[in-house]
């Protein structure tokens, strides 16, 4: 990685007039340039992998199966090309800004439509900004992607602290609350006085916190992993008790899905308790890859959407491919952020899907293969200022990554009323 302290000729450079807080900390353009030695070292480690024996079952009930890992490692070693990913990253403007003592890496792409709606999009775990690369042009340049000029967004995509090219916290306290404050400051530093925020997975926790903090300028949030579970039901489900009350069919389905999810999140419980003990995800590429792959969705653990991507080499519609899955894993490896990313689970002491009490305008898209399908009834109670609610017909936990076209269509629809109001004011 190389940081440039002087602005280089780049696509859509940051307009000087937006660099309002420059005296506080400069916004520095950033280019990803991984030394060739790091890539050689990675390949050498993959080639030298010492494998466990095959699991004792014929399915994935003991973890990521050996045959799958060996196939993936072979492809990673012999065919995957990080430089292509690097080129994709460097094709968009990357920056570093220091906020609250730490360097924050972010992608910032301004639309050519000046009255575009500024949007900050927050990735999750085991993801990174790589989850969001396919939505950037669709959001910023809608007329090239079936939209109208009124659908345009200025897009800001930060790397969470401890993730990717952002700095790693050296003291405790960097949970979703603090990141939410940092994102508000980032938007302010970029000169955005009114904007919206979006997130799934950890990104959903962060945008919920932004909603709670309601910083000046934040008009609304969109979440694809809404926290809607009523307190009494959440308590019962956590304890493994039958949920109280008279539930609708949708609510009952959500309870069943949550119970399934709670049985598949040992990785989260582990990282919440012992993130530092995961030395293997810093020292072993296959150890890291297995750890990152073993995240569930509604259709399996590892996530069915990711497993099916491992056999998809290209996709015209933007569906997730094997290379993208490895791009993300390789980013964790090259930045050595497996453990620092895990620490976010340790930092967070709140609930998973319980209603948080957000009162600003909220838009929700429910993807069918998400951890649970939030019922509209719960969503209306959890987010009393619900401006948009839709159930998509495909996509899951990694919605932006799996179904970028659909995801972007959702964001356009979700924020249309905000867009209109902002333009007319």
């Amino acid at each position, binding site marked *: 990685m190389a940081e440039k302290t002087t602005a280089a000729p780049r696509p859509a450079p940051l307009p000087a007039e937006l660099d309002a807080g420059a005296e506080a900390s400069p916004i520095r353009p950033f280019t990803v340039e991984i030394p060739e030695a790091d890539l050689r070292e990675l390949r050498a480690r993959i080639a030298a992998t010492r494998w466990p024996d095959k699991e004792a*079952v014929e399915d994935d009930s003991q973890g990521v199966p050996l045959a799958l890992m060996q196939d993936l490692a072979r492809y990673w070693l012999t065919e995957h090309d990080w430089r292509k990913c690097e080129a994709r990253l460097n094709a968009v403007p990357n920056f570093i800004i220091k906020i609250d003592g730490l360097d924050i890496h972010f992608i910032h792409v301004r639309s050519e439509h000046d009255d575009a709606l500024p949007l900050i999009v927050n990735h999750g775990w085991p993801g990174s900004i790589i989850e969001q690369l396919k939505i950037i042009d669709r959001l910023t340049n809608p007329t090239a992607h079936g939209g109208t000029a009124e659908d345009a967004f200025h897009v800001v995509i930060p790397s969470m602290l401890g993730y990717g090219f952002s700095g790693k916290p050296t003291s*405790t306290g960097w949970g979703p609350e603090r990141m939410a404050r940092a994102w508000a400051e980032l938007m302010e530093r970029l000169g955005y006085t009114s904007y919206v925020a979006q997130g799934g997975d950890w990104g959903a926790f962060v945008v919920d916190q932004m909603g709670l903090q309601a910083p000046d300028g934040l008009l609304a949030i969109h979440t694809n992993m809404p926290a809607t579970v009523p307190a009494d039901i959440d308590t019962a489900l956590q304890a493994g008790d039958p949920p109280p009350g008279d539930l609708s069919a949708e609510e009952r389905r959500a309870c069943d899905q949550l119970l399934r999810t709670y049985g598949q999140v040992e990785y989260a419980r582990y990282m919440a308790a012992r993130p530092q003990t995961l*030395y293997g995800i810093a020292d072993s590429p296959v150890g890291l890859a297995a750890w990152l792959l073993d995240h569930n969705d509604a259709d399996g653990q590892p996530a069915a959407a990711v497993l099916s991507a491992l056999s998809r080499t290209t996709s015209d519609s933007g569906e997730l491919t094997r290379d993208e899955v490895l791009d993300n894993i390789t980013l964790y490896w090259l930045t050595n952020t497996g453990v620092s990313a895990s620490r976010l689970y340790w930092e967070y002491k709140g609930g998973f899907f319980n209603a948080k009490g957000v009162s600003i305008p909220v838009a929700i898209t429910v993807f069918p293969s998400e951890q649970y399908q939030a019922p509209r009834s719960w969503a209306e109670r959890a987010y009393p200022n619900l401006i948009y609610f839709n159930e998509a017909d495909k996509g899951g936990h990694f919605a932006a990554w799996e179904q970028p076209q659909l995801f972007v269509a959702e964001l356009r629809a979700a924020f249309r009323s905000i867009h209109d109001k902002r333009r007319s004011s």
Partner: protein
Amino acid sequence: MSTTVETATDIRSFHVEIPEEQLEELRRRIEATRWPSKELVDDRSQGVQLETLKALSRYWATEYDWRKAEAKLNALPQFMTEIDGVEIHFIHVRSQHEDALPLIMTHGWPGSVIELLETVGPLTDPTAHGGTPEDAFHLVLPSLPGYGFSGEPKEVGWDAGRTAQAWAELMNRLAYTRYVAQGGDLGAIVADVLGRQAPEGLLGIHMNLLVTTLGAPTPPPGDTEEERAALDAINTFTTSGFGYFLEQSTRPQTIGYSLLDSPVALAAWLLDHDTDSYYKISGAFVDGEPVGNLTRDNIVDNITLYWLTGTGASAARWYWELGQAQAKAHAAGQAPPDASLPVGFTTFPGEIFRAPRSWVEKSYPNVTYFNEVERGGHFAAWEEPELFSDEVRAAFRSLRTNGGSS
């Protein structure tokens, strides 16, 4: 490793002989470790501390000598025998005192037979260790399936029940018709199950972990101060120290990739057990102040055994089997049969929780021995082999009245 057929039976003698290349490869990997950034706290609350693990790995790569461990193992008679489709490795030391009591003792996780080596002298040769001939045991120390030099089950179902059956078969094969069993940690689970299965010839069991209260569907009572303190300790463990259990009982293969490929990952995983033992072990490396027998060499012997045998994942799988068995029992709503034969128990102060006598008596109807000692923790046999051996002697003394062994 090499095996040679010793007799016409299916018990073969066994020697440990690790090729030099494997030791070089291990050192090379330790030296090439890529470290994560330091934890953000000043204690073990985020996991194994970087300074501790770096000190361990420095010692491991530059000073440690596996050949000494190998010599210690090979100084004892070791054997292999196939039981129920799995090769079982065991140490078998007969006392020179012919009427010694046969004892099968089972290690736990993250341990191995290495934990138990220092008890061999006191238990089999008591007169050289402050005891009398009446304290003597014929000692059998098996490696659990998937651990150390034992084979790795290729099919599911090797839970504690099947292991206990294998141990009864092993004692039978060794022609011990009257014997006792002992265990801590997973070994205590095996001893507990053996007690409930009550195979012919088993006279009694002794444990140093009360396994009936960990993960029990209904928590034990908290009526006395002692009981409340134990409940608090269990609660602390299950909220902050339980991660390895959750991961191993659900996704052993996933963490297994790290444990097989990275020596420091394996070392950290094995060090991250209970708070008491962690700080004792950490102290041995960081401050050079070992507690009891938890010396740098003994700790690294055990980690190296896991590495050289490539058993990080297969050992973790034992917890998966445990989880499956518990879930099955829970779904069936079945309480296990009582262990009605004589039960001895010793509470060590540094254990995950100090089991009160009341809980032990509630768990087992026929408690013939209970004692609380002043030193030692979760790895009681490893940390305090002499004290531990005294407890084993005392616990089984009343069962010797009929004398005789094989």
